[in-house]
Every structure is written in C-alpha cells, then in structure tokens.
C-alpha cells in the first residue's frame, strides 16, 4: 500500500483518539515538574540542615528590635518617625532577603545540577542508542523504495523535518529515538533485507509506520526527557541519602521513601509508554494501515494456550501485550475511559508535586511579597503625610494589597498551575469519557455518580504521594494522622465536585459542537474554566492540610497558652475544615453555576448547522447524532473520517 493508494471506506464510525490531545502529555509534564520540585525540596531540606545559625540569629534580633521600637501600623506613626521605622523594617527585609538567598543556594544548586545532568543525558541519548545498536544510515542508494516511501509518509503526515533513517542488524523490529526536531527512525535488518521485505508484504512497513507514529505523536523526546531528568534525580538523591546525618530512624524512613518514590516514577513512566504504544498504533490506523497492523498484533495468539500469566510484572513492562494492543486498536473506547490506574497515578503525581511545593511556594510567595513589601515601606511615609481622612483607608488598602495580596496572588498562581496540570491529565480524560458516552448514546444523568470512584482514588493517591516524598511537610507520619481520613473524605468530595463540573462542562461546551474541525477554542475554554474551578477547590484542601501541621509545630500551644493543645487543635481543625468546606462548596456552586449558565446562554443564541449539508439545527447535544438532512454525523470531529478509519474499522470487520 503506497501513500497514494485508494483507501477502502470505513465500516462504521470509530471514535478518533486524536480528537483530544493525549492525556499522557500532561502526565509527562507533571512527571518532569515533580522531578524539579523534588530536587528543589531536597535542596531546601539541605539548606535547613546547613544554615548558619548566626544569620538566623541576626534576623531574629532585627525582628525583635522592629517589634519593640514601634507599632506595626505605620499609618499610626508620627510622620517624623515614619522614616526611622521604615528604615528598621527595610533592614529586616534586607536581613531576611539575605537569609533567603543563602537558603535558596542549595535548592538552586540542586535544580541547576538536575537541569545540567538531565540536559546532558538527553542530548547524549541518541549517541547511546546508536552505539549500543550499531546503527548506520539507511541511504536511498541501498534501499531506494523504503527511503522514498518513508519520506513520502513523513511528508503526508506533516512530520517536519522528516526523521533521519538508520538501520541496524536484526529483523522485524523498529525504534524511534532522538531529540526534538531531530528524530531518528531505526529499522532492524540490512538495507537489502528491508528493501526485500518491503515489497514482500506489509509487516515491515507497518512496523516502520508504528515508529513513524511515535515520531508524529512526539513521543521520543518526551520519553527521553522524562527519563533523563529522573535518572539525574536518582543520582542526586543517592548522594542525598548517602550523606544523611546519622543512621537512625530518619535515615531509614528517608531511604524507604526514596525507594518508594523511584518505584512510583518507574511505574508512571512505564504506564505512560504503554499508553503511548496504543496511540502510535492508532496513528498507524488513522493513516489507513490498521488492517495489517491488526493482523500483526494478533500474531501473539498463535502462541496458543498455556502462556504463563505475567500479571505481576505488568506495571513494570514498557510495552503492553500484543493482544491488548490489538483490542485497543479494535475499539478505541479504552482510550476514552477514566481508568483506575490513571486516577491513582495522577493522584500520586499530584501528591508528590504538592508535597514538594509548600517550601518552594513559600519561597515564591516571599519573592513575590518582597518587592510589594518594599514598595509598601517606600510609600508609607508619603501616605502618613496625607490628611487623616485619606491616611487610614489608603494605609489599610495598601497594606492589604501589597502585603497580604501579593502573597495570596502568588499562592493562587501556584495552585492554578497545579490545577492546570491536573486538568490536562485527569480532567482531559473525563472530557473524553463524557464525549465518548455521548457518541455511544449514553445520556443518563446517573453517570455523574460513578465519578466518586476516580475522585476517591485520586485522594488516596495524593496521600500516597505525600507519604513517599522524603521530608514531606504533608507526610501523614505525624501525630495528627487520625485527622487524615477526614481530610481525605473532604478532598474526595471536592475532587468529585470538580469531576462533575468537568463532565457537565464538556457535555455542554463540546457536546454541542456540530463541526468537522476540532473545536480547539471551546476545548481551551473548558480547560481554563476547569482549572479555575479546581483552584477554588484546592484552597480549602490546602489550608485544611496546613492546619494539620499545627500539632507538629506546637504553634497552637504557644498561641493558646493555658489550653490543652490537642483540644485546641481538634477545635481549630474541625472549624477550619467545615468552614472552608462550606465556603468552597458555595464558591464552587457560584463559579460552576455561573460558567455553565454563561455557556448555556451563549449556545441558546447560537445557530448551528450540519457541517456536511449546512442543514439548520436546534442547539442541543449533537455528538452521536446524525443530520436529519444528509444522515451524516453532526460532530464529525469526534470520529475518524472514512479514509482514516479504514485501517482500524476495516481490520475489525475482517476479523
């Protein structure tokens, strides 16, 4: 089959796995971000151990001096003394800024080492593969037909620049590797043998196209990037564990946490690669070569019964069994479902990122608050000189905005970033599931209910993530652990609310799109709205989790002197949790209701038409429905077009 060959028509419409960007991209990004944050977190832990006590002492002294010498509200200070108090505060800022810079040095070194090591490993991986496989360039002189056809396929599939073609000894295998925009397609077999097999059948071609599919999906550089960054981090963490002070319980727990973290990373990485294999298979099917690929994937069945079960080794394997790939190629529905492992691994990734985040977020908040605080100190003498009627409101407003507002803004931005990551993984998959359900005609409103399961799994995964990050602030291994189940229940409810919102939004904003092209703008709006709502829900979860730390620090005991710290803790935790939970639900209802109503109103005003025959339609859910005028699917963007579906659907029909 040449790229120009006519393709047979599709037997039935198949869901297009590429109607949405793959959720694996977000998971890869999250994995790489987790590595950077863990490195920074470990660096800050080293800072805490190696800090110079004299610097902290100096800062405390200046702070004490500042507290003793004047009131905190500069607006109440006599204008004559404002400058002096401002100077004192500036000294405090300078002192604490210097301390922060010293604190930031180890994490900066850790992140720099991580970046440099990862960049080196990533840049060198093509050489490593070439050396190990003994590859040589596949030239048009030795394999003219193969080279010409692969270049044509690459051009047809929009792969630019086309991948370099290489060969190595072997047979019936291929490999995609290389840097971004410098990808390599490696075929096993001598050029003459490849040329011969190319004309003898479709197996070699399908293997080559599968690898080309990886390149088209951008798999190779993401895979190698994640591997490089985590391999570097493993090296750094081994050094960290080796130089841990003491050999006591802390060292043991940290070592166990490191091992668990690395096991989780390996599981996530292999899981991502397995999903990517099925996407590459579907890419081949979308190019009209699904039938020979399906035949090849079915070969494993020839092994017959008695194949030993390898379920225990499943999480560690880089490739799914061929029969599983064949099943996914037959029905792309599996790529549209919210699986338990996706929820669990997303939860763990969220936990790992969130557990490494507080100290980093604290630094970011400080860095954000520093210029705002300095500005506050600079403008305060001028405000103090204003008439009394203006002085107080301006002073209070500027104090709130510049001192508290800047920190809250930074924290909100951090949570928004985290929300985007979760939206691009689990949120995206919920959107896909909602659209797949519509396409299959499953319109029941009860389908919102089962979303509690992925929500609970995400919450559980988050707790596991908190547990496996070394020196985690949120680790459940602290005296307040009995409160953790309550937090988990609350977090499950919040995530469930969010998943309900994402599903409803996807149905409303994407399920009504009667068009042939992919609705990119509505999809981005759904993602933006989902991330914003999740940020609203993350706030109470984060604050409630922080209140659990109070028992650790003994802060409550010092604030509420004379009271039983445990009782005070329980009181504060429950009040905080319930108040925040109520507030979050109210905010959620407001935000979700407003955004859904806005989308609904805009849809009511819109006139939609059939993308095939321009027949006027009533605004309603169109995915899974056909046009009354031409009987063609209204939401063609959800399905593989006739040409594309030829492979996958045709192969199923022949089975």
């Amino acid at each position, binding site marked *: 089959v040449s790229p120009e060959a006519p393709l047979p028509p599709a037997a039935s419409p198949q869901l297009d796995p590429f109607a949405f960007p793959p959720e694996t991209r977000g998971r890869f990004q999250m994995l790489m971000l987790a590595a950077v944050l863990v490195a920074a977190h470990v660096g800050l832990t080293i800072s805490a151990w190696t800090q110079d006590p004299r610097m902290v002492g100096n800062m405390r002294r200046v702070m004490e001096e500042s507290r003793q010498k004047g009131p905190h509200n500069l607006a109440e200070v006599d204008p004559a003394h404002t400058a002096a108090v401002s100077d004192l505060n500036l000294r405090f800022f300078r002192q604490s800024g210097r301390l922060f810079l010293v604190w930031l040095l180890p994490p900066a070194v850790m992140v720099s080492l991580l970046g440099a090591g990862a960049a080196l490993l990533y840049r060198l991986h093509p050489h490593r593969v070439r050396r190990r496989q003994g590859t040589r360039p596949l030239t048009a002189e030795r394999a003219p037909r193969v080279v010409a056809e692969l270049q044509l396929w690459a051009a047809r599939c929009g792969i630019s620049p086309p991948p370099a073609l290489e060969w190595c000894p072997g047979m019936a*295998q291929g*490999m995609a590797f290389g840097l971004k925009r410098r990808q390599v397609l490696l075929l096993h077999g001598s050029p003459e043998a490849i040329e011969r097999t190319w004309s003898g*059948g479709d197996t070699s071609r399908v293997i080559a196209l599968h690898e080309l599919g990886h390149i088209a999906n951008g798999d190779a550089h993401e895979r190698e990037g994640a591997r490089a960054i985590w391999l570097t981090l493993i090296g750094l963490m081994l050094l960290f564990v080796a130089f841990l002070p003491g050999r006591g319980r802390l060292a043991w727990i940290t070592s166990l946490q490191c091992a668990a973290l690395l096991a989780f990373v390996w599981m996530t990485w292999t899981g991502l690669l397995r999903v990517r294999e099925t996407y590459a298979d579907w890419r081949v099917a979308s190019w009209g070569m699904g039938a*020979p690929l399906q035949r090849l994937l079915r*070969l494993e*069945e020839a*092994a017959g019964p008695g194949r030993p079960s390898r379920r225990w080794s499943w999480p560690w394997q880089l*490739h799914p069994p061929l029969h599983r790939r064949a099943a996914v190629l037959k029905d792309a529905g599996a790529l549209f479902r919210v699986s338990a492992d996706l929820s669990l691994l997303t939860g763990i990734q969220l936990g790992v990122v969130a557990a490494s985040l507080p100290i980093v977020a604290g630094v970011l908040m400080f860095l954000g608050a520093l210029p705002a605080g300095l500005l506050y100190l600079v403008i305060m003498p001028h405000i103090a000189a204003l008439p009394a009627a203006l002085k107080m409101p301006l002073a209070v407003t500027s104090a709130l905005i510049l001192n508290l507002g800047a920190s809250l803004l930074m924290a909100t931005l951090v949570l928004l970033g985290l929300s985007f990551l979760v939206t691009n993984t689990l949120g995206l998959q919920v959107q896909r599931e909602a659209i797949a359900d519509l396409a299959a005609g499953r319109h029941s409103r009860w389908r919102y209910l089962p979303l509690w399961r992925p929500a609970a799994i995400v919450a559980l995964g988050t707790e596991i993530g908190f547990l496996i990050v070394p020196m985690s602030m949120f680790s459940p291994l602290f005296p307040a652990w009995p409160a953790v189940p309550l937090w988990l229940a609350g977090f499950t409810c919040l995530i469930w609310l969010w998943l309900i919102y994402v599903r409803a939004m996807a149905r409303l904003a994407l399920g009504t799109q009667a068009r042939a092209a992919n609705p990119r703008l509505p999809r981005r709006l759904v993602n933006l709205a989902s991330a914003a709502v999740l940020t609203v829900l993350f706030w109470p979860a984060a604050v409630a989790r922080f209140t659990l730390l109070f028992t650790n620090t003994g802060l409550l005991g010092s604030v509420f002197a004379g009271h039983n710290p445990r009782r005070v803790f329980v009181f504060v935790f429950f009040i905080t949790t319930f108040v925040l939970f109520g507030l979050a639900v109210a905010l959620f209802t407001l935000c979700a209701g407003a955004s859904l109503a806005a989308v609904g109103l805009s849809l009511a005003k819109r006139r939609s038409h059939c993308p095939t025959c321009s027949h006027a339609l009533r605004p309603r859910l169109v995915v899974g429905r056909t046009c009354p005028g031409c009987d063609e699917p209204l939401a063609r963007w959800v399905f593989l077009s006739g040409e594309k579906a030829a492979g996958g659907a045709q192969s199923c029909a022949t089975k």
Partner: protein
Amino acid sequence: VRTWSAGERHPRFAEEEWGKMQTSQFLALPENRAAVAEIVRHVLAQVAPDEIDATAEFLEPLLDVAAADGLLPVDSSDEAGRFGSGLDLMIQVLVPAVSALLANLLATLGQPAVTALREARRDEIRDLIATQASAIFVVIRRTRSRRGRRRSVEIVAAITNAIEAYAGARAERRP
C-alpha cells in the same frame, strides 16, 4: 562442496558449532533453498498458521542470513521506543532450524542436494532424523526465542514430520 560419507561425523560437530559448517554450503544450491522454504512453510502451517501471510516477507531475507552462516537472534528486549517485546516470530526459529537440520542430514548422508533424501532408504532417513532431531533444540536455544523454547517439542515434531513428508518416508511407511 566438501561432502562426507554416510555415517561420518563432521570434524566440528560440537554442540555450539552444530550445523554451522554446512549451512552456507547447503543453501548455496537453489534446490536446497527451495526445499527449506517449502518445509518451513509446511511447519509454519502446523505450528503458527496465523503467521504464514504476515511473515512470508521475511523468509527470503532469513534464508540469506542463514546462507551467510549467520543467525538472527529474536530481539524480544522490552526496550523503550521499540515496536514491542511480544513480536517473537516463529519463522525466525524455523528457518535456521530446518536449514541446519537438513544440512546436517545431507552431510551425514554424504550428499550435496536435498533431492538425495528422496533417494535414500526410508528407514535410514527416519533413523537419521530421530538421532539428530534433538540437536534442533540447540538451534532453537541459539535463536533466543522464548516462544520457540516454550514450544520446542512441538516444533521438533513438526519439522521431523515435514522432512519425512518431503522425503516421502512417511507416505511409504503406511500400509
């Protein structure tokens, strides 16, 4: 082409070298090559019928490799970026196994061409196959095919039957 008289063992008939000496010489003759292809297809139809169409394109290149005294081990490493670890093709086991067995049978018979099998005494062929079939296990092991090793007994039986059928021994044994 160096040949050996009947019953004479090849001087390098060590287990690791089994079949290696004769295979290139054996496959240099077109009729031998055609016979191997026919027997491989016959065996494939018995042990892995689904593979006949999908792997037909690899037969000639594999014969080329065997003719160059080479053997392509099955590459089933689960390395990232590859097509898949499960692609363990039976043809990669059968071509070297059949080539080596036939080459050794002919070396033992002292004949260069496979047509000699049809002229040899039937009981002699049966005995030769019976005594030398065990060595196919060595070739299967060298191919590093998990699937081949798992089904080695079945493969050896299928190859033996196919060669007997090719030589006509089985047909004449029937009453």
